[in-house]
């Protein structure tokens, strides 16, 4: 890959995909490509972020994202600290701002944050000096998931222009859907969303996607299916009649794929999977699935993000030192 990479990364925070340019997204993907190679080395660790401290501040449950960020930081030799809301001072009523500023007083460089409220990382970035990375905020954005999805698509298919990607499931409550739509649109892919009417927000077309309520239509002609998790806890709110009906109307099964899908369709899922609900067993573990590749690629993509942000932190630290000398 001998591409001229001329654009420069200048952002201190990664809060979402919406504000990024296509070039910035591609820069992250290109750098992630090199980190993927690092992960295949006999010693999959480099000294790049030595001396930097990264805090994982997770105010919502997570296995994949948190371990992925933690591993990415460790592979880059940064020190990491994990704070899980349920066992921290949040339960004593400390505000997010106070918690963050106290952590920052311990001299840290980046905060990776997941929060149930949309906009929490944006708020945080305004009250601390550290770089903030959004690891999922409410139903708003999950930028690194969209980046690793894009990376996985590019690795598998090699291009974005004209590619048809269908996102299936609960679009209303999905930050993964939103970040993916923004990313894929910027990269030139065509996005279709599909799910029960109650789980598709009104006017989503304005984000530049096609909408269908017919699963076979979403599968037909698609190069990629990104199947979202059905948040079973939502079912109590009565947004769809029953799990069984959901499976019948929208569940991705081998039969359905063999009947309507392109032969080389790629099936993705951000995890955790409800086996037998949105994905049948044989699809989740079958030949179309790249679900575990997504997880592997996630570490490389997050290393790229940490690396790029660290350069901005270091450049501004260098400037501060100069000012003091002058």
């Amino acid at each position, binding site marked *: 890959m001998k591409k001229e990479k001329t654009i420069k990364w200048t952002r201190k925070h990664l809060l979402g995909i919406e504000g990024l340019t296509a070039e910035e997204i591609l820069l992250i993907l290109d750098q992630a490509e090199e980190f993927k190679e690092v992960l295949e080395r006999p*010693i999959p*660790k480099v000294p*790049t972020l030595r001396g930097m401290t990264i805090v994982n501040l997770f105010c919502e449950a997570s296995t994949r994202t948190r371990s992925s960020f933690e591993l990415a930081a460790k592979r880059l030799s940064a020190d990491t600290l994990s704070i899980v809301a349920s066992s921290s001072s949040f339960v004593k009523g400390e505000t997010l701002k106070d918690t963050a500023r106290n952590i920052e007083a311990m001299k840290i460089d980046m905060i990776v944050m997941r929060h149930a409220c949309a906009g929490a990382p944006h708020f945080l970035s305004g009250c601390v000096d550290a770089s903030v990375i959004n690891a999922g905020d409410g139903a708003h954005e999950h930028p690194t998931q969209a980046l690793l999805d894009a990376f996985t698509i590019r690795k598998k298919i090699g291009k974005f222009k004209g590619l048809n990607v269908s996102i299936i499931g609960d679009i209303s409550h999905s930050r993964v859907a939103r970040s993916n739509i923004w990313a894929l649109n910027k990269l030139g892919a065509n996005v279709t969303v599909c799910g029960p009417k109650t789980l598709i927000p009104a006017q989503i077309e304005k984000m530049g996607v096609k909408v269908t309520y017919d699963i076979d239509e979403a599968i037909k002609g698609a190069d990629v299916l990104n199947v979202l998790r059905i948040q079973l806890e939502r079912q109590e709110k009565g947004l769809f009649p029953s799990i069984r009906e959901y499976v019948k109307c929208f569940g991705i099964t081998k039969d359905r794929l063999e009947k309507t899908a392109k032969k080389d369709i790629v099936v993705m899922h951000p995890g955790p999977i409800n086996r037998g609900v949105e994905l049948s067993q044989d699809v989740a573990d079958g030949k179309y699935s790249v679900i575990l590749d997504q997880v592997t690629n996630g570490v490389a993509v997050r290393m790229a993000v940490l690396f790029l942000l660290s*350069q901005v932190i270091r450049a501004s630290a260098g400037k501060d030192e100069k000012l003091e000398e002058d």
Partner: protein
Amino acid sequence: MNLKEKSKTLDEAGIKRTLLRISHEIIEKNQGTDELVVIGIRNRGAYLAERIAENMKAIEGKDVPVGAIDITLYRDDLSEIAEQPVLQSTDIDFDINNKKIILVDDVLFTGRTVRCALDELVDFGRPANIQLAVLVDRGHREFPIRPDFVGKNIPTSKDESVEVRLKETDDKEEVVVLA
């Protein structure tokens, strides 16, 4: 800081002859090409490594594995450099354990780049030894590092700069001193 070209030290034919001589020296010192691998430091060192490996094949008739290494992740000056280094690919798709590595770079100056490369290489395995080949040695070492094969020694002052320009990266072949 805008530097002007002060002198041209090597032209296209000069570079070619120099690399051929280095290739012969490597083979002579190692008594053939057995167990040798050539690894160039990105950017220009990688192209020079390919040429040296080609020369060695032409001389000895045996393929020599060639790799390239990007040292960005091992740099000690990431906080000092103004321009943002972009990570490029490291391609070492062979085992380096017990191999004799010829590490290739275009210009040897402070020795810091070579230090990075050495640190990175030992994370790939335990080579029998590492030998350093450079097209230009311009002096001013800051680390105890010395080359085993030198194309040309060019005495410089510290604020001068030496540029190796290659077809692959610069559309021409020359070595110039800028001052």
